[in-house]
């Protein structure tokens, strides 16, 4: 079973919400779609569900044309950002609603609904109205309603974004266990948080301005982002980028800072490059002087916002240390962890994935 999108275009008064998107989703696959707001993630889900008609392109499920099938004839389930439930129905009636519409007898619908409610931990809330529940519980009801149908395609549009920080963490764990059980459905989950996308997804899709700019195994994409844009989206805080060049045997950054060429960049011809370095791949006590713009301590880590001739960058330091704003700090760039991008932003060389 496979859901195939080919050259899907959706434009609304000349803003490209989906720009020539081609994707293949396989049964049992858990796909996470990562991208900033307005990257086209929600439009992608709405196109699959049939809520939005693409101007161009084909959409087929197991070869059957899905494009012209109306929403209510597609075996699709969806969870919205804003925990959408039917206000006038009890929690149990909410979850049984799709089964009743599919002609399942009342008794069996009630049983299956109770089963799924138990799975999401709302077993003893079935007589309540959704409005009487907390945000997290309302979202669980919406999830239960999506799961009870055992639909071929399960779509989740940033389901945790409106919840408290700690609740998000907890529900993410629950989602992971629940999705493991959906091995005969296609699950598509959109998010703006890289950690969530990498943790939940078997396959990761990065979208920006309506286009799919990279897809692949989450760790592979993390370790080898195709472009600077992908690298910025996949890292939080974003990857540091330094303009520079490779000349006479060394990496030259602005402010005549020289770095030794690491083995994985040795084969690169001389020329100008954009060098990328993750915030956790810089450390204190190096040779490059820089000014502290801001230092933020978060429990076990210190986040230093620094500026120097080579440009402004962020450094993640394990452990906690105080730095007054404006003081200077010596920084070391770990050249073995440097990414090399072409001036246009395409990845040329990535550091080896270390198995220490």
């Amino acid at each position, binding site marked *: 079973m496979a859901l195939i999108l080919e050259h899907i275009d959706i434009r609304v008064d000349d803003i490209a919400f989906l720009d020539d998107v081609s994707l293949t989703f396989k049964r049992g696959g858990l796909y996470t779609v990562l991208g900033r707001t307005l990257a086209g993630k929600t439009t992608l889900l709405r196109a699959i569900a049939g809520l939005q008609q693409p101007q161009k392109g084909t959409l087929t499920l197991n070869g059957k044309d899905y494009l012209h099938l109306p929403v209510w004839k597609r075996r699709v389930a969806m969870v919205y950002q804003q925990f*959408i439930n039917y206000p006038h129905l009890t929690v149990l009636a909410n979850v049984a609603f799709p089964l009743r519409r599919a002609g399942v007898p009342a008794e069996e619908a009630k049983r299956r609904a109770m089963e799924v409610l138990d799975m999401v931990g709302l077993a003893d809330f079935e007589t309540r109205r959704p409005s009487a529940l907390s945000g997290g519980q309302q979202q669980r009801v919406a999830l239960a309603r999506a799961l009870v149908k055992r639909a071929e395609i399960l779509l989740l549009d940033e389901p945790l974004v409106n919840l408290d920080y700690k609740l998000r963490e907890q529900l993410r764990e629950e989602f992971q266990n629940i999705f493991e059980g959906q091995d005969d459905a296609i699950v598509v989950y959109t998010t703006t948080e890289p950690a969530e996308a990498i943790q939940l997804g078997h396959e990761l899709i990065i979208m920006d301005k309506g286009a799919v700019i990279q897809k692949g195994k989450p760790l592979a994409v993390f370790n080898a982002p195709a472009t600077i844009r992908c690298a910025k989206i996949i890292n939080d805080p974003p990857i540091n980028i330094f303009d520079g060049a490779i000349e006479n045997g060394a990496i030259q950054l602005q402010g005549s800072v020289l770095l030794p060429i690491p083995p994985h960049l040795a084969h690169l011809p001389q020329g100008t490059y954009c060098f990328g370095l993750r915030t956790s791949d810089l450390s204190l006590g190096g040779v490059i002087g820089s000014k502290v713009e801001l230092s933020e301590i978060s429990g076990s880590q210190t986040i230093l916002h620094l500026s120097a001739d080579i440009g402004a960058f962020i450094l993640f330091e394990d452990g906690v240390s105080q730095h007054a704003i404006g003081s200077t700090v010596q920084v070391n760039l770990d050249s073995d962890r440097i990414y090399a991008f072409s001036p246009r932003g395409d990845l040329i060389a990535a550091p080896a994935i270390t198995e220490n």
Partner: protein
Amino acid sequence: MKSLYLVLKYLAILLWSSFVALPFLWALTTSFKTSNGVTGGATYIPWLQYEPSLEGWKVLVRTGGQGINIVAPFISSAIVTLSASLISMVLGTLAAYGLSRFSYRLGFVKNSDITFFFIAQRIMPPIVLAIPFFLMLQFLGLLDTIPGLILVYVALLLPIATWVMVDFFNNVPPQIDEMALIDGCNPIGAFVRVILPNSLPGIMVGGLFCVMFGWNDFFFAFTLTFTKTQLLPVAVVALNSSVTPWWSLSASALVSVAPLVIIAFVVERFLSSGNMAGAIR
């Protein structure tokens, strides 16, 4: 300063309340008067300033020569208003849901233009429609009949119903009906099973507006009926032009105004809550 503000505040409220109550109280006392209570100048308190009598009220139900028989017009008014309101609310709610959820395009005419067309009927002064309706009903042979009036009142109330319901549906998040579609309802199913059960507040406000504008209309009833059918407002105004004594005039006025005033007390909760603001934006 605080206490002065409070005194002024309650004084203003008292002043306006008495201004509001004046016509009702005056009509009430007058309805129990007899001629000497009226001709000698304004009198207010029964037994002290005048001898009250039930004459004003009795004449209302007496049929034949001397009586005014307010009952028949009361019933016709009720029939016309309720049926026109029902038809307008049904058609209006459907049209409003369509306008709020779908995008219609007839040539260059878009949704907002169609909604404006509905609302623009309210801009149409009644007199402009009086002549065409007169000629239309004459042509259809419905002049001076209840069905004729119902037809005209639907034209009067449908724009109101649609206006209130469009604004109500625009405040219901579209994701709810989308969720119903995804769960297997076709658009009509989504409307009936999910939207309607949640639209009670909007329907209440819309229905109330229709009944209010229908029951209180004088002009169309006046121009399009003669002898056979007579609605309440027309009947009362007819008394006014003839030399009817003030007491039966006041009594008949109070009777025809009473139903909606009672409804006002019952439904105040809906009117002053958010729906009204919604109904206007």
